[in-house]
Structure formats: C-alpha cells, structure tokens
C-alpha cells in the first residue's frame, strides 16, 4: 500500500521535501513508516515530533491503510 507523508516546518528542512509517497507492507503502522528510508532524516528529532493521520493527531501505534495521509508535526509555534 501507499501512504502520503507531509513534512512541515523543521521536518521539511531535514527531509528536504514537503511530501513523499511511501510504499509500505500491509499492517504497517506510523512506527513502521518512521523507519522508511524517506523519513530517515527525522531520526535525530523523533522525540519532539508528533504525527497526524488524516488530519487528526495520532499515536505512532496507529495502523495505516492504503491512501492514508500522515503529517509530521514538529512543535507548533502559532499564536
């Protein structure tokens, strides 16, 4: 299955792109997505990152489905 990944703020700089399409095996979770090559640049920053699955904050244990969108959410600084 394919999952679309969006990178915002600092995570976009680390990865060098604003999005990626990642091929994952059935049953993959956000935890498995994080280990994909396309996201390897995030490794040093994982403790500060949150993830959104289809526009909702989500635990990294969440199971993914084909066509899902995962967003990488660095600490927000709006306001």
């Amino acid at each position, binding site marked *: 299955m394919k999952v679309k990944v969006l990178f*915002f*703020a600092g995570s976009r700089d680390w990865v060098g792109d604003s999005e990626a399409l990642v091929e994952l095996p059935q049953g993959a979770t956000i935890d498995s997505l994080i280990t994909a090559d396309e996201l390897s640049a995030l490794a040093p920053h994982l403790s500060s990152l949150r993830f*959104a699955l289809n526009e*909702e904050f989500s635990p990294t244990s969440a199971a993914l489905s084909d066509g899902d969108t995962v*967003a990488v959410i*660095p600490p*927000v*600084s*709006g*306001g």
Partner: protein
Amino acid sequence: MDKLLITDAPLDAAAIEGLVSSRERGAVVTFSGVVRDREQGAAIQAIIYEAYESMAYKELAKIIEGVESETGAVLAIHHRIGEVPAGEASVVVCAASAHRPEAFDACRAAIDLLKVDVPIWKASFTAVVKSPI
C-alpha cells in the same frame, strides 16, 4: 466573516469582536498576539507563518467547540499566515459572554490550547537589513 478563519490578510480585532458580542453578551475579552520586533535576541521585520491549513481548521474548530461548551462563552479565532510584519497581529481570539469570568476563562483557554495543538508554525523571520544608502 466566519468565527474561525485562517487568512493571509491583516486581522481586524473590532470586526472579530463584532462576530461574538451581542446585547445579551456584555462581557467581551479579546487577546491579540502582535509580532514583536525581536525574536531570540535579534531584530526582525516580520515573521512568516505557515500552517497545515486543513488540519489547523479542524483543531481550531475543536478548540472553539470544547471551550464554548465548557464555559458557555461564544468564541471567534482568526489566525494570520504568510508574512506578518512586526507590530501587526498574528492571532486574535475573542470571547463573549453574559458575565466576565466566563469570557476571560474562554479567551485564555482558547489561546493556551491554540499554542499547543494547532499546526501553525513560525516558519522564518525576515531580518532588519540596512539599506546601502
């Protein structure tokens, strides 16, 4: 104008207050976050905000719904994105209620939650540059 807005246009606090105040809601509390001219010790001219806009709308809607049902106040939240010059507001949160404790509580809760859960970022700063002449 909607109670909830993410826009690249300047914010008008008086117009936003008009969305929630009424003759029944006599207590109106407004928070404006104005871009300062220094960030992390350096002089700046503007902050450029970016948003994960579709999700930011959902998170802001949850904040409005949750805080309104907790306090009974009525809320409007407008956030500016793109380049916001120093001295201009990046966010306006306005709460109106029949009595002032609820309006204060609602306004403060909403901006506190916004700062934690809404996917908007200070993406970069534009610095003060001296012109060559």
